[in-house]
């Protein structure tokens, strides 16, 4: 039995639609805009579905369309201002915990911290990242995509993905630490400052 184009499209879309939304949410930082972006990307993908080779990576293809749409809209809105950011040293949270006398208890202090930070705080920390780090980090944390697949989505070399992820993670650790301090979160009996 022959499937219609729409049936084939729906079948490809269904398993990746939640991921597409969560990714769009981190790009746009807003639920309504995220739904708009997913809708635009999905409609674009459907219109070009004949160009999609069955059996290849639909997820990467859709996310690439979504990313390009997002970046194009940003440029048009003239908001693609490069945000200045400082380099952050590696293992930022580990260093800060050491400085604050937070010691390994029977529990890993990093796990304790992460358990005390909610979904909203993680989102807020990701949202502080400049576009190029936010795209790569969101794809990585949402999907555990291999660097190669992230490179395909973002259309950049794999080395660029690696450096964006590594730097993005440092920036993210700093943002998470600052949120924890602002919230007065304590870890293994010690207080952050």
């Amino acid at each position, binding site marked *: 039995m022959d499937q219609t184009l729409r049936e084939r499209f729906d079948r490809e879309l269904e398993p990746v639609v939640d991921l597409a939304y969560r990714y769009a949410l*981190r790009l746009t930082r807003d639920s309504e805009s995220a739904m708009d972006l*997913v809708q635009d990307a999905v409609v674009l993908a*459907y219109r070009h579905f004949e160009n999609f080779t069955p059996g290849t990576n639909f997820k990467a293809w859709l996310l690439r369309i979504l990313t390009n749409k997002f970046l194009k809209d940003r440029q048009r809105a003239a908001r693609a201002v490069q945000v200045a950011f400082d380099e952050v040293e590696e293992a930022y949270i580990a260093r800060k915990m050491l400085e604050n006398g937070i010691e390994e208890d029977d529990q890993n202090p990093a796990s304790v911290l992460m358990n005390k930070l909610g979904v909203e705080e993680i*989102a807020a920390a990701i949202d502080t990242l400049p576009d190029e780090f936010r795209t790569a980090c969101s794809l990585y944390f949402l999907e555990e995509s291999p660097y190669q697949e992230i490179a395909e989505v973002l259309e950049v070399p794999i080395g660029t993905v690696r450096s964006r992820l590594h730097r993005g993670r440092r920036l993210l650790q700093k943002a998470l630490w600052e949120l924890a301090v602002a919230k007065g979160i304590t870890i293994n009996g010690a207080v952050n400052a």
Partner: protein
Amino acid sequence: MPEMKPLNCEEAFARLDDFIDRELSPVEQQLVQEHLNVCAHCLAEYKFEAAIVDGIKEKMRKMQVPQELSARLGRALDSA
């Protein structure tokens, strides 16, 4: 035949992100693993960094998806 010279702490630490992400070559992945087997300090660093990555992944995947999304996409595709 790649040379299997053991890594020192600095070399192991420099590969930690890639190790966590399983992006090293099999040989390098094994070299880092062997260092972690014998170095309590780097093992603690690894567990610390991995816990942060795992914590972020877990929370990111809990972000609520609005129920109306799929109906909305269905309508958009109907008129596309």
